[in-house]
């Protein structure tokens, strides 16, 4: 149960190109977006060139083929995360998925289990990506509900010591990330889910950084909603997933309204189609959903446990090599336990932007800044960090190239 990185890299056309005048591409920015294998690129092209038509609508052969391709992708994605087909909603991104839940809850009228009032609370954490923070801030502002959160400890874990005070009988939603896109920390969901369900709250899981990297099963996790983006899982841009428990999706009011999500419409009223159509207004992102299906198939064939194993090994190697650099501070768990293959750091006084620029000149692509988790940066007391995020096409050579480039940066900026 393992794979050859050299073989995997052949599936990804981008590795045939070079960077900055002939340098080998060392892509360590998969946390932002992953590269795409040919099978995904071709799935989109094939849809356009052979089967393109509006799904669910036409009474013609192309429409049938397009519908089969689109609904087939839904089936693959559902299997990939262990859910039911009718529980999978295609969105444009994880950002939309989370906004969908937050806005739909805002649309709930009193009597609906999702209706929020000033006596309710919404719980998040200090390590959330802005996509899993601001929609809840806004929902709180719109409904008067209180926003509460778990802090992050100095060793980069969630502080759950006060869980019973944070998640209370008034809590309606707990929105939490599975894996931090900055720290790499994998959060202990069991305790959170247990407490949330105890008080009747739903758990919304931001799985952007977990679904692409490990085997994720919605039934085992027992969360209520789960969001991820296709583009971080070797899939196309412009497609995301919201998964939700069937009975909850049934009760949740719709979000975007328009064609294909209705049952009946008059000039002043409308009623809704069943799930998942209720949440997919308009002609959907068909080619992208089909591409995401191909991505999930590709990942399944490699095996998600093998992907995870590979990343654990590579993270161990990276943590060891990087720790040996003078002046480095790794912002995230130092132990290779309950953490993913994302390593953020600061390097003495050199600003992350300057580090990023220098290592780029060596062909190494990293990301710098607050990584859309500004409150976390403040909590960790760093204005910004440099982040290297590894994936299935990276290997020890890439870690070595990063380390060498970092040493080069120290030399380059130490000139004065």
């Amino acid at each position, binding site marked *: 149960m393992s794979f050859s990185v050299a073989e995997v890299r052949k599936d990804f056309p981008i590795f045939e190109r070079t960077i900055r005048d002939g340098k080998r591409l060392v892509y360590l920015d998969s946390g932002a977006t992953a590269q795409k294998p040919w099978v995904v690129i071709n799935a989109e092209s094939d849809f356009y060139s052979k089967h393109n038509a509006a799904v669910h609508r036409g*009474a013609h052969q192309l429409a*049938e083929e397009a*519908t*089969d391709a689109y609904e087939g992708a839904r089936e693959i994605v559902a299997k990939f995360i262990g859910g039911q087909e009718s529980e999978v909603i295609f969105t444009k991104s994880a950002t939309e998925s989370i906004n969908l839940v937050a806005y739909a809850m805002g649309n709930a009228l009193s009597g609906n289990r999702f209706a929020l009032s000033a006596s309710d609370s919404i719980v998040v954490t200090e390590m959330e990506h802005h996509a899993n923070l601001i929609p809840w801030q806004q929902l709180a502002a719109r409904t008067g509900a209180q926003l509460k959160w778990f802090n992050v400890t100095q060793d980069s874990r969630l502080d759950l010591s006060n869980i019973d005070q944070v998640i209370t009988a008034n809590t309606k939603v707990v929105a939490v990330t599975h894996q931090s896109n900055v720290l790499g920390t994998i959060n202990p969901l069991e305790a959170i889910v247990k407490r949330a369900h105890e008080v009747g709250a739903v758990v919304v899981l931001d799985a952007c950084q977990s679904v692409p990297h490990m085997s994720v099963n919605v039934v085992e996790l027992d969360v209520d909603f789960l969001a991820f983006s296709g583009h971080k899982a070797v899939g196309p841009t412009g497609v995301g997933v919201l998964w939700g428990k069937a009975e909850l999706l049934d009760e949740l009011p719709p979000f975007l309204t328009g064609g294909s999500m209705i049952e*009946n419409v008059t000039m002043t009223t409308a009623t809704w189609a069943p799930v998942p159509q209720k949440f997919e207004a308009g002609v959907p992102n068909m080619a992208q959903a089909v591409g995401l299906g191909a991505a999930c198939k590709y990942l399944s064939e490699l095996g998600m446990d093998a992907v995870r194993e590979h990343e654990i090994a590579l993270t161990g190697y990276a943590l060891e090599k990087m720790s040996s650099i003078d002046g480095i501070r790794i912002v995230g768990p130092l132990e290779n336990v309950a953490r993913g293959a994302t390593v953020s750091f600061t390097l003495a006084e050199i600003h992350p932007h300057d580090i990023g620029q220098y290592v780029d000149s060596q062909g190494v692509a990293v990301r710098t800044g607050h990584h859309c988790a500004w409150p976390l940066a403040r909590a960790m007391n760093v204005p910004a960090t440099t982040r290297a995020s590894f994936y299935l096409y990276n290997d020890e050579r890439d870690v070595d190239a990063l380390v060498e480039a970092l040493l080069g940066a120290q030399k380059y900026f130490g000139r004065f």
Partner: protein
Amino acid sequence: MELDSLYQEVILDHYKHPQHKGLNPVYTAQVSHVNTSCGDEITLNLNVENNVITSITWDGQGCSISQASVSMLSDLVTDKTLEQADAIVKSFSELMASKGTAAGDPEVLEDAVVFAGVSKFPGRVKCALLGWMAFKDAAIQSQGESK
């Protein structure tokens, strides 16, 4: 021609001469369903006495498939018990989900086995099921009523 497996003579015949069309004002349950993708509508009145379907009538507009289907359904379930009708609905639903791989049980479905051809046309399965789903709802409601 493949189209002929969809538009079998008996289907077009029921379409031109729909059975049980026109609503009977006596009923234990009235149900309206709509095919959201095309706007076809059906209203169905069901009368159940002592667990037996004594009358099923309907009105609405739709394509040949949806009209013929509800017409045959009405023929089929009249004078049946709710349990018998339930078995017929199950059998028909399975046939519709078969994507052209099943032939349908003539013992249970009688003439309605001709809808086997419809199951090859995914866009039309909903049409064939429109009246049946309305009937299913009405039967559940009538069960409550007649107990």
